């Protein structure tokens, strides 16, 4: 459980009473903070470098919501011919866009098996590996 103390940022000017004197402590947990619709939210690991332009690196943890309505240019997880991929969706031109300079966009063709699985609502950098097991 993460303990969260909401103290507004200060410019360091002295002479005022410390706002921390009356701070309230509230308990937050990351699930509540990051996940709006638990029964429609899934986790996934990113694998590959094609989304670095969106700040998603290989090994990052993705929080994927099936609840969100998919908007144009959203970062989504999709099933493309039996493989889960993470791309930006271009709804008007039916394309999957990468966020790396060397990757060409992918045109979704008629014979493709394609469904959008959910919207990537957060990505979490694991600066140290996860050690907990559930």
């Amino acid at each position, binding site marked *: 459980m993460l303990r969260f103390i909401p103290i507004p940022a200060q410019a360091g000017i002295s002479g005022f009473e410390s706002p921390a004197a009356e701070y309230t402590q509230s308990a937050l947990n990351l699930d509540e903070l990051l996940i709006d619709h638990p029964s*429609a939210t899934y*986790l996934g690991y990113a694998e590959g470098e094609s989304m670095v332009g969106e700040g998603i690196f290989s090994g990052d943890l993705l929080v994927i919501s*099936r*609840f969100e309505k998919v908007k144009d240019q959203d970062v989504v997880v999709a099933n493309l011919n039996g*493989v*889960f991929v*993470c791309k930006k969706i271009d709804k008007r031109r039916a394309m999957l866009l990468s966020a790396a300079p060397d990757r060409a966009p992918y045109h979704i063709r008629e014979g493709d098996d394609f469904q959008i699985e959910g919207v990537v609502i957060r990505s979490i950098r694991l600066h140290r590996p996860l050690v907990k*097991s559930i």
Partner: protein
Amino acid sequence: MYALCDANSMYASCEKIFDPSIRNKPVVVLTNNDGCICAACHIAKRLGVGKKFIPYFQVREDLERAGAVIRSSNYELYADISQRMMDTCSRFAPRCHVYSIDEIFHFYEGWVPPEGWFEHGRAIRRAVWTEVRLPIGVGIGPTPTLAKAANHAAKRIEGYRGVAVIDNETARRHILQNMALTDVWGIGSRLAKRLQALNIDSPWQLANANPGWIRKHFSVLVESTVYELQGVVKLSWDDVRASKKEIYSTRSFGQRIRTPDVLGQALVQHASIAAAKLRRQQSLAGVAVIFATSSPHDAQGYYRKYITHRFAVPTQDTTVIANACRQAVQAIYRPGVPFYRCGVGLIDLSEKAAFQQDLFTPSADNPGLMQCLDAINARYGRNTAYLAGQGIQQKFAMRREFLSPQYTTRLSDIPRIQC
């Protein structure tokens, strides 16, 4: 009005959620220990493979020829997906009752959805598909039995495509005329035969039978079914569910057991599962039934042995029940028998609240320890803390050769997504 939502081929559908490479393939799921088929997706059914409860080894080649994907039962995954399905469905009705892992009843009291019942059913189905990726059928009707009938129609009768509503006479007649008697909730095949002997051949005829006459020939339960088919509510799940009269934990082993130590460990594990259930319903057990058997199909003949152990004082303590098991092993075990199945049953149950202490035989229960054990396991998962008597390495664990990852409940099994 009532609605019944249930998942199509729940287990097979769960397997497809996190493995898009098998979504267009025939998927067949096996029972405990990979013994029999317990679920098949619609593609497998269309190919004529995956009939329920057929032993896997009998149809292995047929399945291979059909290109079927075989999976062991992944209960961890199904339980999590079930929870998500129930959460999603529950948004749509003021009151709900989870009936099984893949079925939930809705009760709308007087409320009527502004968009109409059919559109409401479609909205539930759509929400579960987009949010959980589980295909479900929705049946809506004025009684639980008619909701169940509508649910049958939603999935099986042509033209309904997943949603059926019984809110008028035409719909009620059409659906009841297009079902078999055994499709009616509570009508098994033996009951159906007896009904047919009295010239009641279809659910529609049953609905039009005289309830009093049915009661005389059958039972109050069948009479209630007739009323329900007519639109009069007779079933209720608001009555407090009675505590279970007996609690069993039993299972067959992945591999045969041949040593008393391992048999003892397996029994102690069953003791701990049953005792935890006992504490959850706040009961005490007077007697434990402890048993082990070989397989009836084993060449060397069937062996089974039961021990009933009466406790000096009714108990709900895992250690007390486990001790009884350790003693029983000596009586049950016989060298050379390949043990296939064992279990512990707790019977002669009484309510803990009504228990009278005996001055001369004090209870050996340690409620503080049990409370602590249950609290740890509730918080950190089953078997986080357990008796050493269960064995550290559980050699008798289930055989699950074709197990898929636990995508939603285990960190190492979280799906990989290509970037």
